[in-house]
């Protein structure tokens, strides 16, 4: 192998790693049926503790959950959303811990429903009987939250985010030399605004990205700007 073909192989490999790691964000959102109906003069929202897991993507492709990163990201996201709603004169009750078993179930349900909306609510995998209208719901089980937290709407946030270790990046590099594309870290997130009277999801936004960093304030702000874009509140 000449030095120039070697350089070529390295350049190609770097390009492949870059292509795997620097894809565009795909922002998808639906804004249907956002007819907000507030029961009082003050807009009141409960912000449910965001369901966040940040993980380190190991060389072998395992996601190793990181408690410290997760805690940091969860706090940054909560504070960021609360601050942004506050600026719009919305009264926000922050639910920082989940102690009520029913709330825990609703958070899990939101994770399941949100992932379905992500897959079937937009674009290619639209369900024939469902179409692209935003008519998904968590069901009337949300009603008791309305009294408990004295709010008309709830905001649910779901984030799964992984960061490639140096070892993983090395495997991506090696794979690129061998002509194999290997996945790096990815960020999957969605946010729902739910009408607590009906459980209906009245606004939903989702984000898929292969860059971004939720472990610091700057990265979290940029993430929130993307995920809250178009938010009709």
């Amino acid at each position, binding site marked *: *192998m000449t030095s120039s*073909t*070697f350089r070529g*192989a390295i350049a190609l490999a770097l390009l492949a790693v870059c292509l795997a790691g620097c894809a565009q964000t795909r922002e998808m959102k639906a804004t249907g049926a956002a007819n907000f109906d507030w029961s009082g003069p003050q807009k009141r929202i409960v912000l449910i503790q965001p369901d966040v*897991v940040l*993980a380190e993507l*190991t*060389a*072998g*492709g*395992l996601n*190793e*959950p*990181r*408690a*410290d990163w*997760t*805690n940091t990201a969860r706090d940054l996201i909560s504070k960021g959303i609360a601050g942004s709603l506050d600026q719009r004169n919305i009264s926000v009750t922050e639910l920082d811990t989940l102690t009520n*078993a*029913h709330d*825990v*179930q609703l958070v*899990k349900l939101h994770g399941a429903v949100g992932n379905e909306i992500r897959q079937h609510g937009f674009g290619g995998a639209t369900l024939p009987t469902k179409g692209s209208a935003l008519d998904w719901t968590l069901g009337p089980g949300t009603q008791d939250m309305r009294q408990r937290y004295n709010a008309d709407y709830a905001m649910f946030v779901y984030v799964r985010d992984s960061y490639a*270790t*140096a*070892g993983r*990046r*090395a*495997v991506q*590099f*090696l*794979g690129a*030399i*061998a*002509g*194999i594309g*290997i996945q790096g870290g990815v960020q999957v997130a969605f946010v729902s605004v739910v009408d607590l009277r009906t459980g209906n999801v009245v606004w939903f936004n989702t984000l898929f990205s292969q860059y971004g960093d939720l472990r610091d304030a700057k990265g979290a702000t940029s993430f929130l700007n993307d995920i809250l874009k178009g938010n009709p509140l």
Partner: protein
Amino acid sequence: MSLRNLLSVLCAGALFLSAAALAEPATAPPKPGDPMQPGYHPASDTDEAGLWMMNDKAEDTFKTSPLLVRDAALNAYVRSVMCKLAKDQCADMRLYILDIPYFNAAMAPNGAMQVWTGLLLRAQNEAQLACVLGHEISHYTLRHTLAEWRRAVNTSGAMAVLGIVTAGAGVGLIGLAADYALLGSMMSFSRDEEREADAHGQDLVAAAGYDPAQCAALWQEQMAEEDAEPEHKDGFLFLRTHPANKERLATMQSRAAALPAPAAAPQVDAEALLQATHGFRAAWLGEELNRSHYGQSLILVQALLAADPKSGELQFYLAEVYRRRNEAGDAARAADEYKSAIAAGAPVSAFRGLGLTAMKSGDPAGARDAFQHYLDAAPAADDRAMVEYYIAHLGDHT
């Protein structure tokens, strides 16, 4: 690209990779096997904290599970056995009794203990229950999940590299063999952990004053039950992850004999366990029979009867096993057992069972008599209409 050149590229890459791997921060000072202190909680920047976090999320599912047995007395009893073994660390553990008719218990790395009702039905005494709990507590205090996790991270990393190297060099078969070799090493390591948990658990059992020989007795009973229907081993999760059962049984027996003699006589406490579980036994046996593995249920009910031979309830379930298994001679065996059960004060359903058996054996008069007894004793029975239908049509096909 010649093979030599390819190898030099791959070697350069491998060097880069190992340098990168070394540069990764060494997380988590505690090593698997390090004893865990009471009140322990991992530092938040460790891999162990990540494992705990995910297990905390999973634990939420137990708390609201429809399978969760919430009976306060039963929970207090099983917890008291757990605490005799775990002592100071008991405060770090949560107990979830789940209504699942299989022999199993499991402890998550964050201290969440699951105990299935199939285990509570099968343990013949408190010492045997302690054997399983002690084994699970040992997995927790010795941080075996952390060890497994770190091995998975390292082994899958090695597999990813080997997979690439062999794919690039066109030696797929060698790559496959290497993958299997690595998988083999994962398996054999967890067997070592099982042995370690056996030994450590048995020590906890003996230290709490229980008879450590009961661990081997329980193991032997479960192996006998499994062997009755080897094609249905799936229910025995606790044994399935524990290969080489015979060797481990022998180790448990010899360890029990070698443990220093306790100051007081070792406890077995058959009475305590029976008292705590007695009110649930009928429901658990009903679920056990619904597994439809009658060969295994037969071994189980016979073993329970050996310990409690006068129980009409157990005789009734023995009759139910025969009737539902329905092999040659089972109808006659079931009829005999229903009769003994009725004599011993069995539940009223024994008359219905006797009626069904008589009907099947072509004895309409006997069936009518038994069914009538059933309806007289339980006039509000859910299946009254069905039984009346049987009575009305007795003899139609005989």
